[in-house]
């Protein structure tokens, strides 16, 4: 691995939101996956955002 930097919850959530807008790069994807596997809070947040999208599209039916 190259330049190691601390990947914080804030960066994880930035990527979670950006993933709605565009495909993440491989690096971003890797950083995010790594963080989610280690961080229960962000993992909860990820699940909750996905749930919201599912609920919203269900709302139209």
């Amino acid at each position, binding site marked *: 691995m190259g330049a190691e930097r601390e990947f*914080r919850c804030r960066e994880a959530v930035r990527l979670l939101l950006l993933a709605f807008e565009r495909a993440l790069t491989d690096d971003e994807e890797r950083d995010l996956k790594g963080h989610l596997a280690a961080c229960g809070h962000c993992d909860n947040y990820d699940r909750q955002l996905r*749930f*919201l999208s*599912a*609920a919203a599209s269900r*709302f*139209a*039916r």
Partner: protein
Amino acid sequence: MPNDATRDPRHAEIESHRGYLVRYALAKLRDRELSEEVVQEALLAALEALPGFRGDASLRTWLTSILRFKIADAQRERVREREVFAATSDEPGGDLESLLDAAFGPNGEWREPPAAWADPHASLEQQRFWEVFERCLDRLPATGGRVFFQREVLGEETKRICETENITEANCWVIVHRARMSLRTCLEANWFAGETADGR
């Protein structure tokens, strides 16, 4: 009225879709009063056409298709009246960073770490959940509510939504994200807070 509702059980059911339909109309017309009028017309038309409704589509889908015609009429009418609805965004979009600033402390840590929600998908089957969901949608700022509804409920292209809202795409995304985050907070406070208590 309860007496009307007992005539055909589907009358009451139709009424239960009013909130959704007003939101749908609002996303297209951006005028609450006009939206409520148009929905009223659509529901009256639906009641008349109800005997012919076979239930091939869901009731909501069927009502929405009737509403679409009424919305198109209203839009044509508006063009005829040459009313110019200046597209203004009524709240600043800000940027992604200011959105994150609100959720995270100076060291990039959660201000309020998200707790797990107990079995959220089971909530989708509960009528009460949808009531809370609608109330949370109502609490979003006007533009946020409209953009979120078009993007996430109707699944429309963000690019198109931004064009009709007359805002930049970047701004548009921030508005959707802000709506997403507010909605999450609202559902957590008004639905999942009670749910998680016994779920863990």
